[in-house]
């Protein structure tokens, strides 16, 4: 439809909307750099941005492979946790008794700091293998995805169900044609949260021990030997990869749920 074509004008307008944010970012970096010089801040407290960038560049051959190693763990946990969350929500939505029994527990579980279990997961699964990090990332992703998916699946209007029943549609058809599409915007909201949690889970999991190929282990060991520039450069890599995963989910959402009110062309 013509309403979806992006005119050059709208691209220009979107670019202009970014200008204030970029200006603030550049200013903050400048203040950071200037403050360290002005107040003689020790580099172990806060390295200069230029020092971080040079460590980021000089050690790119160590940092990026480590980042990629951790990113794969996060991605695996994200996929497992999200699919598990959607599957669990589907089951709970279908069998109300199951929901009544499990939902209070799930909501309570969602409120506990699951990341605190990271050392336990390292003990359960081999701490040196990616599996333990995938497990912690997966569990972190599971709860928000399940709770949100369930909310989406049950937010279908009674009229929509009556309409489908008037066509003598089966429960499976109603799920596929109505419940799941209705839940999609809710699912994507949860996936965006989960994408951030997955990266946190993987990196923090590695702080408690992991392979020397991993980014979390690298950040921790560099901090221990007071090589703070490299530790910060590692955090920068983790941030960039986290943002990349988030953006990938957000762009997929835009393509898949164009009908949702927040994605409609104005």
């Amino acid at each position: 439809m013509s309403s979806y074509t992006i005119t050059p004008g709208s691209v220009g307008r979107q670019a202009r909307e970014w200008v204030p944010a970029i200006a603030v970012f550049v200013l903050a970096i400048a203040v950071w750099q200037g403050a360290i010089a002005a107040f003689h801040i020790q580099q172990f407290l806060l390295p200069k941005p230029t020092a971080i960038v040079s460590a980021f560049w000089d050690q790119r051959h160590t940092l990026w492979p480590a980042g990629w190693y951790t990113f794969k763990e996060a991605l695996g946990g994200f996929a497992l946790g999200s699919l598990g969350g959607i599957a669990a929500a589907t089951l709970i939505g279908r069998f109300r008794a199951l929901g009544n029994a499990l939902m209070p527990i799930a909501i309570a579980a969602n409120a506990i700091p699951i990341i605190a279990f990271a050392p336990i997961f390292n003990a359960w699964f081999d701490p040196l293998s990616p599996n333990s990090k995938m497990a912690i990332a997966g569990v972190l992703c599971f709860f928000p995805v399940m709770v949100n998916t369930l909310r989406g699946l049950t937010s279908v209007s009674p009229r929509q169900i009556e309409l489908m029943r008037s066509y003598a549609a089966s429960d499976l058809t109603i799920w596929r044609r109505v419940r799941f599409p209705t839940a999609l915007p809710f699912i994507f909201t949860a996936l965006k949260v989960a994408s951030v949690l997955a990266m946190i889970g993987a990196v923090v999991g590695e702080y408690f021990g992991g392979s020397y190929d991993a980014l979390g282990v690298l950040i921790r060991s560099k901090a221990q030997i007071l090589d703070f520039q490299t530790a910060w450069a590692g955090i920068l890599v983790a941030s960039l990869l986290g943002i990349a995963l988030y953006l990938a989910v957000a762009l997929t959402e835009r393509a898949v749920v164009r009908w949702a009110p927040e994605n409609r062309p104005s």
Partner: protein
Amino acid sequence: MTGVNVVEIQSVTKTFPAGNVTALENIDLTLTTGEFVSLIGPSGCGKSTLLRVIGDLIEPSAGTVTVNGKPAKQARGDHDYGIVFQDSVLFDWRTVAKNIGLPLELLGWDRAKRKQRVDEMLELVELGSFGEHYPWQLSGGMQQRVSIARALAFEPALLLMDEPFGALDEMTRERLNLELLSIWQKLASTVVFVTHSISEAVFLSTRVVVMSPRPGRIAGVVDIDLPYPRTVETREEPRYFALVTEVRELLRKRGEHLLPEEEAALTE
């Protein structure tokens, strides 16, 4: 009227266990082919419940309902009726054309046959150029026309309508009343039409069934002998006013059952 019974309702009673409400008590009603029957009454008179009992969306506590000579459940399975609600119940992720085509997809029609019928239906409701739009890009009146097109797409013998124009402004409502009548005459289907509006019921129907609440009962039936095709002028004829008054009197006679605000709502 050919005299074939499309809907037969025999001593139907419906009680809801929650609050022990008797929504319908001992309802008998028969609709023949080509009739346009309105169910009118104050809130709580069971008119929407009766519509859903006909559509087998609610099971009666007692009594029987047949549609096209079959039990209501079987008729629903055979796609013997289409239904239109007060809100259009369109799916936001489907285009207008795909919304209209949904029942045809569920019936397993192939793509080409589906497209041909959807195009016909779009013409019927005068939305020919809006097939590729999304529902949320249309006005409320247009959305309701899409909903009607969807209900009629598979040519059901019976059309059930639950206050379809209740949420629209007066002008849109009167225009859609005229459109609905022309569609009904073209397709010669049977219509059950639930409404709050006396003037709408009289203008559209061949018969108006007046219902009263607590428990839901039929208070009376008014035959509407205004000739078709009905036009804007129909609303200005003395006979039209006489029938509107007759329906209003029937509703008022049952006034002892009404709450004060319901009575106020009826004296438009």
